[in-house]
């Protein structure tokens, strides 16, 4: 196969923000009730990348989160585990030790997350360190400064280089859409990431607002749709940051279903990057089972 470079990827279509807002509003009027709600909520749980990305993270904190990842709410049997835990490279070894061979994956941010302001060699070293420590997935950030100054080739080549450094680990490419400002930019960055080798595209680091708005996620899902229609290759999607309620999570699933189809409705192809979503979903699940809301004190915080 001919190596792909930025120069021969298709031109990104223009995006009309008003039209996107209207389309998104349509998804939000979908009414998810009863069995669909139960099924949807469990699906949401299984798609969560339980995340801690703080300067004050310690092995202790990560250990606790890894336990929570596998035991969301043991009082209620039959719940799935989350999809993955998401930590800094320095914590990957701790997580690997805790999770051993559990089905919960370990995702590590890399490329000098969240700003990404470092030379490529440092980013590659960062990535390899995380992979060697046992990360199954790498969440890299793109160089937004380069993107905004029009150096698309640079962004493309950087992603391709990190993809190579990932080896077997799956690569999620964080666009940090809150810094890209326009949906046109979001679409362009999505196309660059996908063609450069991303396995997943991801909205945000969670450090910048706005993060995973439905408009942004919609725009990225359309890029995935178009790429699939062109090539037959599936790309995953991970909205991250700002999705903290079950309702918003279900509306995201509605979007995935109606744009990409049921094939994407599993944690191999769709993830939520979130720290507080899980408990809200658990509360909703218990509500659908028991008919009453329980206080947040009945759900563990780890």
């Amino acid at each position, binding site marked *: 196969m001919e190596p792909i470079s930025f120069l021969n990827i298709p031109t990104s279509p*223009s995006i*009309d923000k008003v039209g996107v807002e209207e389309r998104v509003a349509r998804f939000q009027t*979908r009414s998810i009730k009863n069995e669909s*709600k139960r099924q949807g909520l469990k699906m949401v749980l299984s798609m969560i990348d339980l995340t801690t990305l703080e300067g004050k993270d310690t092995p202790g904190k990560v250990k606790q989160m890894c336990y929570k990842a596998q035991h969301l709410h043991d009082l209620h049997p039959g719940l799935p585990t989350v999809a993955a835990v998401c930590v800094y490279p320095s914590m990957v070894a701790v997580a690997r030790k805790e999770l051993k061979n559990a089905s919960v994956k370990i995702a590590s941010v890399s490329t000098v997350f969240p700003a990404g302001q470092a030379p490529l060699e440092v980013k590659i070293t960062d990535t390899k360190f995380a992979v060697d420590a046992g990360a199954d997935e790498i969440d890299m950030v793109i160089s937004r400064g380069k993107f905004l100054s029009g150096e698309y080739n640079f962004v493309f080549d950087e992603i391709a280089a990190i993809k190579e450094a990932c080896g077997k680990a799956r690569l999620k490419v964080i666009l940090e859409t809150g810094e890209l400002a326009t949906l046109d930019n979001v679409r362009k960055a999505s196309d660059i990431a996908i063609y450069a080798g991303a396995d997943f595209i991801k909205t945000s680091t969670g450090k910048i607002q706005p993060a995973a708005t439905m408009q942004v996620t919609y725009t990225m899902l359309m890029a995935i749709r178009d790429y699939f229609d062109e090539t037959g290759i599936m790309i995953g999607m991970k909205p991250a940051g700002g999705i903290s309620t079950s309702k918003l999570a279900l509306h995201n699933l509605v979007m995935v279903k109606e744009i990409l189809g049921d094939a994407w409705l599993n944690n191999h192809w769709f993830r939520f990057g979130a720290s507080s979503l899980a408990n809200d979903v658990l509360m909703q699940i218990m509500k659908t089972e028991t008919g009453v809301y329980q206080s947040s004190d009945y759900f563990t915080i780890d």
Partner: protein
Amino acid sequence: MAKQNKTESWEYAPSLEGTSHIQLKKKYDLFIDGKWVKPTSGKYFSSINPANEELLAEVAHANEADVDLAVKAARKAYNNVWSKMAPLERAKYIYRIARLMQERAREFAVIESLDAGKTIRESRDIDVPLACNHFFYYAGWADKLEYAFPNRKVESLGVAGQIIPWNFPLLMAAWKIAPALATGNTVVLKPAETTSLTALKLAEIIEESGLPAGVVNIVTGYGDTGAAIVNHPDVNKIAFTGSTAVGKIIQKAIAGTTKKSTLELGGKSANIIFDDAPIDQAVEGIVNGIFFNQGHVCCAGSRLFVQENIADKVIRKLKQRMESLYVGNPLDKNTDIGAINSKEQLETINKYIQIGKNEGAEIYQTKCDLPKKGYYCPPTIFTNVAQSNIIAQEEIFGPVLTIQTFRTVDEVIQKANNSPYGLAAGVWTDKGSRIFNLTTKLRAGVVWANTYNKFDPTSPFGGYKESGFGREGGLHGLNAYVKLN
């Protein structure tokens, strides 16, 4: 490619809007002179739910004598009360009607969906709020007419006879009644025979609002009832929305009389997609343009023109999008396309689909299961269509789209204008200058740019050529109900 996990399908469980809060009488009489009166003919007809063919209510069939009573009541109310009332007081009544409608919005929405087959999503989010807004908007004008028409003396016309269609029953009633009342006219309104119920519920609200008797009269019935209104010698103004064929009959009937008229008739509107358009939003605009309200929209974007170099992509994306449209029970909150309004209309639509096939156009319909009972038509598109195909010329008034391609701007302007109709058009392009170029050259009452089927009380609506004349909505809508000196 990475291994794909086992996928299960995720379907939306039925999410039905409740009907326990609505009140429908078994039998509806005529609303004349502030009272419910039995029709002199003694005849009633059935209003059925097109989604399941069940009877909703019996509705009185007004004849000439009933219409005469209604016009007399309207005349009396005009002479004695309404034309003399201070404009600010008129406004208060109109505001009150608007607020009462808002309070009962949910009931209106459900009845509209039951009676007309339209989805609860649309009647809840579009029809009913817009109808309320028309009353609010025109209430505001009632005491400001001298500012609407500066340096002119504004007089009302008298009794307005209003005949409305079945596609937006309540909304059309609001479009007609609100400006007529605001300008000091009294009203005799006839809803369409398949969709009388929300107009009758509106009559209940009007009764509750304490509007003086006879200011608004609602007479239900068929075409003969409408003819009696049109031909009544004491009616000063005819406002009609409906088919071009009936519009022509009305024009003939009132020729030589002093009756003023506004006619809002059919359409075969062009929706034009250029290659620089935001393609996914344009596809959404195509869907809104033709599948909104089951395609029962006079300004539906039923003729799609796509620039040839992107035609394959647009059609592929359109088909994909169509597969995510849910057709079914109008009361399900997730239904995108409800029931066709009547058996007759379904037959008309199917006749045109057959014509399209016979003409050699390529048909594509979504693979959705239609309910066993009731009148349904899946979203349908025809590709390989030429301007000379019947299906590209005549109004189908259903969820049926014809797709033609074009190469240059001049060609598409010529083709878009090459129609006896001229109600609306849509233009999709990223280039502002191109939008302005087209809006000045397309002979259509409304031209939407990068959107479609957007309505607002402040914006005038109406057609060119066989799509009728006169404008409804906005400042222009007042003009249709006043005499200026």
